[in-house]
């Protein structure tokens, strides 16, 4: 290549890169409204929450610096223990049960075309789009002392099992958990069905030639191929459990006693009802770190298995 040609290419790259650079400034201009709003509404408050968590403040008078005390008192507050303990039960019911049910039903249903697929999918997915407040009101009615669940139990001769489900210290929390099972199941099933459809048929054919049973096919092919979808389902349902608010606020307000309090409900009460803003912020920070940790952790575990 002649020197002249090299010189020419260089000149061209320079003009191109100058053009590109100009375009990238225009890009920043296009981005700026979104970036500004995002900064003001998300980033700055995020840092402020961390800052608030080092103060004792009732929301009105002058805040006082208390260092890490809000975090240290965490471990001594029985309300916090209760709230985070309840989350463990909710995780089990929101996360693991829909995961299992979704896997089984998706594995069964993926084997043959089912007529009216659009219709059943519409209904199974409905809880995902229904207003959460309405979901809570529906279930409050189902569980009411004179509600359909108790009528049903009486009708089949199990009258001794009837109770005020949401007012019962033992049963209120599992009853709330059932709402999560009901709402999450359609989501996991649709997710897993899509995942199974993406598995190449050859894998199953090869397994069949080797004489595998359907059970082995499920364990050796379907389940490992759905690892990504399972990670997504677990992350979403577990962080959903950690953040439960609307449902508890509408149905039980955390009661009876503190039988159904959740971290988000405590945060709301501490921040806005009986303000102890520093403590509320510390709760928020712990909640955020847990959510992030769980998301990262699950992704890690699922990726590690890949290797």
């Amino acid at each position: 290549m002649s020197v002249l040609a090299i010189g020419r290419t260089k000149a061209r790259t320079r003009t191109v890169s100058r053009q590109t650079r100009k375009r990238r400034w225009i890009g920043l201009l296009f981005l700026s409204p979104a970036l500004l709003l995002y900064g003001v509404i998300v980033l700055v408050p995020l840092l402020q929450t961390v800052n608030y968590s080092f103060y004792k403040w009732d929301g009105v008078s002058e805040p006082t610096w208390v260092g890490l005390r809000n975090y240290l008192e965490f471990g001594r507050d029985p309300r916090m223990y209760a709230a985070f303990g309840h989350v463990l039960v909710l995780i089990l019911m929101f996360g693991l049960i829909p995961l299992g049910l979704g896997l089984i039903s998706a594995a069964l249903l993926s084997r043959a075309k089912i007529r009216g697929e659009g219709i059943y999918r519409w209904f199974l997915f409905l809880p995902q789009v229904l207003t959460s407040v309405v979901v809570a009101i529906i279930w409050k009615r189902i569980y009411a002392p004179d509600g359909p669940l108790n009528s049903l139990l009486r009708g089949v001769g199990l009258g001794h099992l009837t109770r005020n489900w949401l007012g019962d210290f033992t049963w209120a929390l599992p009853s709330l958990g059932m709402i999560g099972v009901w709402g999450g199941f359609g989501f996991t099933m649709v997710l897993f069905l899509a995942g199974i459809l993406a598995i190449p048929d050859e894998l199953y054919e090869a397994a069949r030639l080797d004489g595998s049973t359907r059970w082995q096919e499920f364990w050796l092919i379907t389940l490992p191929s759905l690892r990504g979808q399972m990670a997504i389902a677990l992350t979403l349902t577990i962080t959903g459990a950690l953040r439960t608010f609307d449902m508890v606020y509408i149905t039980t307000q955390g009661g009876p006693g503190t039988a159904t309090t959740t971290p988000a409900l405590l945060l709301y009460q501490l921040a806005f009802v009986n303000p102890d803003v520093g403590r509320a912020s510390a709760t928020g920070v712990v909640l955020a770190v847990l959510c992030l940790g769980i998301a990262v952790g699950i992704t890690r575990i699922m990726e590690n298995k890949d290797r």
Partner: protein
Amino acid sequence: MISRFERVSNYVIVIALTVGVLFPVAWFVLTSLSPNTSGALDFSNIAWSNFTAAWHDGNLAHSMYASLVITVSAVIGQTILAILSGYAFGVLGVVGERFLFPVILLGMMVSTEVIVIPLYYEFQRIGLTNSWLGLVIIQLGMGVPFGTYWMRATFRALPRSVMDSAAVDGAGVWNTLWRILVPMARPAVLTLVLLSFMWTWNDFFLSLIFLGDPDKQTATVALGAFQGRHVLQVNLMAAGSLIVSLPVVALYLFFQREFISGVMAGAVKE
């Protein structure tokens, strides 16, 4: 390929699951039509008047209007912001994008609870609590991460040749976006609009905190208050709930595919 037994059992499973999910909703719909305030079903007397009664008693006209104004403003704003920022990241490139894009994506991991406390006290200080505008601004800011992610992926998936030929034709940066790219990306924009509508309309937490004044309340918060007051009029409570959930359910009826694929794509993002 599969046995007759399996085919039949598949239908049994599907029907059982659907009935299980549908039962609470169906019961509730029937309750809303019952003349009995106790919620006992009565098929011989269908009380359509429950809906008008709930509409008046629950102050729903006012709060549905509030929800509509807030939701429509937030949807329009979020969509425009998403198109602009998606175009910036996906097509134009942005100064400092190696840093800016991850920072914006981080927002998808930030839950509302973590930012709501300082937002409330700051907004109270500058008089933006109990204001529809205040809530819309919050919704706009919180919608940026998903919107940016969504429209960036959409624009990147469009064939590069379209943009090059637009550039050859001398279309400016602005016209290329609105005349050529946005029309091509219509399905993705529709999905974004639907998701954004659903998320804003269904919101309870933010409306509860930022719109304490009963005159400003959204439909979800008004409904929450209504069900607290009307424990003895179950049929009205059910009717009110159906009214509040209707807009999203109606959209879902027409755009099932967009809703399901959108929620799924939104989930997979992380």
